[in-house]
């Protein structure tokens, strides 16, 4: 078991606002994905705001992995881990958690890209809550990686 070595307080303070923003986004994404998962399991149409064809998206064959695991549930898992990593980073101050966060958010970015492609090119329909989730994961990615650029010593 490694020892927990807290970072100097200065370093923690500077990233405070950033981590809080990411945590807030993660929570928002978590709620969004939970709603879509609830709708998947309980049935019924998702509320369609601003766009058309929400049911086309959530009812399509791409809405589950192998017909078993709903993509929305993967979203819940994704945001849970985002929140976990950001929490552990804040609590311990260890860089490892930020690296994990970075890797995980990159994965999320890629998956969101794939889902956006499916909606735009294959289904030709969009689902509002799916777009919100894609937007959030892109923002999280940008914020997480912004720290690599603004901080020379990491």
């Amino acid at each position, binding site marked *: 078991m490694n*020892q*927990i070595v807290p970072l100097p307080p200065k370093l923690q303070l500077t990233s405070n606002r950033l981590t809080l923003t990411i945590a807030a986004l993660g929570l928002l994404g*978590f*709620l969004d994905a*939970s*709603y879509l*998962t*609830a*709708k998947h*399991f*309980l*049935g*019924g*149409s998702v509320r369609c705001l601003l766009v058309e064809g929400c*049911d*086309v998206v959530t*009812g*399509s*064959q791409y*809405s*589950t992995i*192998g*017909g*078993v695991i709903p993509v929305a549930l993967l979203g*819940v898992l994704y945001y*849970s881990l985002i*929140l*976990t990593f950001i*929490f*552990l980073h804040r*609590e*311990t101050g260890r860089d490892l958690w930020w690296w994990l966060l970075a890797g995980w958010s990159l994965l999320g970015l890629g998956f969101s890209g794939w889902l956006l492609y499916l909606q735009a090119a294959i289904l030709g329909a969009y689902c509002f809550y799916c777009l919100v989730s894609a937007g959030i994961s892109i923002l999280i990615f940008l914020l997480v990686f912004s720290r690599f650029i603004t901080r020379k010593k990491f």
Partner: protein
Amino acid sequence: MSIIKETKQERSLRKSRERVVKKFILLIIGLAALVALIFGVVWSAQQSGTTSGPQTVKVDLASITADDHVLGTPGGVTLIEYSDFQCPACAAYEPLVKEVVADFRDDLLFVYRHYPLPQHQNARLAAQVSEAAAVQGKFWEISTLMFANQTAWASQSPTTARVTFASYASELGLDMNRFEADLVSEAVAERVERDYLSGVQARVSGTPTFYLDGVEVKARTAGEFADLIEAAIKTKNNEPNSSTTTQTTVNE
């Protein structure tokens, strides 16, 4: 002396670690509670929606189009079935539905719609196969084969099931080149998806689901179906003019 100092440090480390673990557990509990809350809200919203919303009493199913799979005669009552070739209950209903359709062939229009459940691994493929056969006019023939041999292909892997389905197609004397081309065509995939989505819209919750003139009905036997259909014909005839209903009422 140094030993005491170290243990102090260790203790503070241990304490801070315990604090993190505690907070983490709280975080997990909080997230789980949030999920439960959302499920509860969605569920209760749906409950109130189904009881008070007048539009849910009579489902406005998409109008019957020329490429819908129909049996019987239009003009009378309409029975729509949302079905899945891999669902055992649907297979059990198949002969029963055929019997009812034959009995009421002059007053009933039967519509078969695909509702391949995601948990049935070969259901969507089966639906697409039936659509590829429908291009060559053999929809009902292949659907009979699908249901009759359901147990044989349901447990097969999709690749093996595809071979099995192809054997049904050739058994029916289909042009196999055309069948194979249609099977992977976008038109066929979209046709199945269209049915599925109309089912989603109608809030189909399982298979088979039957709608008699837009109202969901449940029947376990051909007799129960006959009662429902007779009642529907009666109300339908009552609406425009009541003079034509005498025949159906005297019979029983």
